[in-house]
């Protein structure tokens, strides 16, 4: 195709869109609905990820150390744990820090503070709070701690206990729930995305079906397939881009309004903040989807009318 043909195809496609009137308007509206669904799926996906991450962050395993354990030995264990690929974060809490936190937590509970006073000294152990990248990986972290116990100078393990066993059932159940939610979420996103794409395809097919006699005439007056197809593809892409622009504009007030009402309900996830923070990503997905949907649907829809 030379420049003259490209220019004519672009001009003709643009004119077809402008002159299409009700057909163009209807196609834009359907595409807008379709792209809105795709946009909603982006937010749903982000909300799902946010929720799962929040839940995952609430799960951890703590290793408590005997009171005789030297701080340098505990920090050596911390260092070893941090080198494990499945470990996200390890936080060291000294016995003194644990005691201070305990006092703060029970500042208004005089009975507990008096009991602590009666015990004399510091009954609390130093600990490492270990957070794995995935809840299913806690078993291997605990296994590492058990299989390579760090010994104190007296030949006894400095690890007093690991609270994994009592939390295991909850962690396992949570791992399963997270996995299931992730898979179901992905399936829902996929089903809605496919349904939206099919709706967009059907709409563009219908718009091109209306022009099937016109396509036959173009072929009979000697237009090549590319010259017939070109303007329809341009019209399809313009339809998509107009619909995408509408969706991107509509999303601002919608995410602001809905976000204000649901942030607390979604555990701190703000739709408006997400949209503002991820605008380039949302823009790219919506715009690219619209161009691909409009263009590909037009190519596929027009093919069957070219055999004249």
């Amino acid at each position, binding site marked *: 195709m030379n420049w*003259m043909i490209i220019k*004519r195809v672009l001009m003709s496609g643009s*004119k077809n869109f402008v002159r299409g009137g009700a057909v163009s308007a209807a196609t834009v509206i359907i595409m807008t609905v379709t792209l809105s669904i795709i946009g909603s799926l982006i937010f749903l996906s982000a909300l799902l990820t946010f929720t799962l991450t929040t839940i995952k962050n609430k799960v951890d395993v703590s290793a408590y150390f005997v009171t005789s354990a030297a701080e340098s030995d505990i920090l050596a264990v911390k260092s070893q744990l941090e080198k494990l690929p499945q470990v996200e974060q390890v936080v060291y809490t000294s016995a003194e820090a644990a005691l201070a936190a305990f006092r703060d937590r029970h500042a208004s509970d005089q009975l507990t503070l008096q009991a602590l006073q009666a015990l004399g000294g510091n009954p609390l152990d130093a600990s490492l709070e270990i957070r794995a990248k995935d809840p299913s990986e806690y078993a291997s972290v605990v296994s590492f701690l058990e299989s390579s116990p760090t010994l104190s100078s007296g030949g006894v393990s400095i690890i007093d206990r690991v609270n994994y066993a009592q939390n295991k059932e909850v962690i396992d159940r949570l791992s399963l729930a997270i996995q299931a939610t992730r898979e179901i979420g992905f399936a829902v996103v996929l089903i809605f995305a496919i349904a939206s794409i099919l709706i967009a395809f059907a709409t563009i097919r219908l718009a091109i079906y209306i022009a099937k006699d016109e396509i036959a005439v*173009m072929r*009979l*007056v*000697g237009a090549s397939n590319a*010259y017939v197809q070109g303007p329809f593809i341009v019209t399809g892409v313009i339809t998509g881009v107009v619909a995408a622009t509408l969706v991107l504009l509509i999303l601002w007030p919608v995410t602001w309004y809905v976000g204000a009402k649901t942030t607390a309900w979604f555990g701190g996830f703000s739709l408006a903040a997400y949209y503002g923070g991820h605008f380039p990503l949302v823009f790219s997905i919506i715009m690219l989807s619209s161009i691909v949907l409009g263009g590909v649907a037009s190519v596929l829809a027009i093919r069957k009318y070219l055999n004249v």
Partner: protein
Amino acid sequence: MIYFDKVTKQYGDTSVLEDITLSVAPKEFVSIVGHSGAGKTTLLKLLLAEERPTEGSVFFESIDVNDLPNSALHHYRRKIGMVFQDFRLIPNKTAYENIAFAMEAAGRTDDEIASDVPYILELVNLADKARHFPTQLSGGEQQRIAIGRAIVNQPDLIVADEPTGNLDPINTYEIVEILKKINELGTTIIITTHNKGVVDAVGGRVVTIDRGRVVRDDTSGKYIL
């Protein structure tokens, strides 16, 4: 110029054309007449390669139309100007753009289009309606635009399928006069019609088709059924 060699066309078990042998010389004006369903339109569709014959061959100049692959049809069709009973103008293009489209499709430059289309609009007496859309034109005006589109690339042949079928007598007369003028300038014309007035006005060769067969081929312009 055109030669139908023992052409048969069947749709399933139904024969629409049977063993048609027919030739048309350059610069001839041929009227193909017959009742509705006689096979006139199918004959033209075979010539345009819209349909392929079940048996036999159709030749245009030295080209065997049956041998043309789909990818080469548009080149072939640029040699033929087509006029339809229902005009078939592109609805979202103006009169000017409908004529220009045939030139654009043939790869003509913007300068050629800018110079030829106004001339053609003058020729069909519609220079003042250049910016009108088909729905803003009468039937006769639409058919004149369709003729303009058919002749703008100066084809060797114009094929008109019932060109006056949807027109009143005055517009019919005007269309016949335009077609006669085009023929006088050297373009071969084949029209199908069942309008005796048109055949009499054209006054050229008349081929009569009945139930898919050529039953009469008369050079003196008689319409007998």
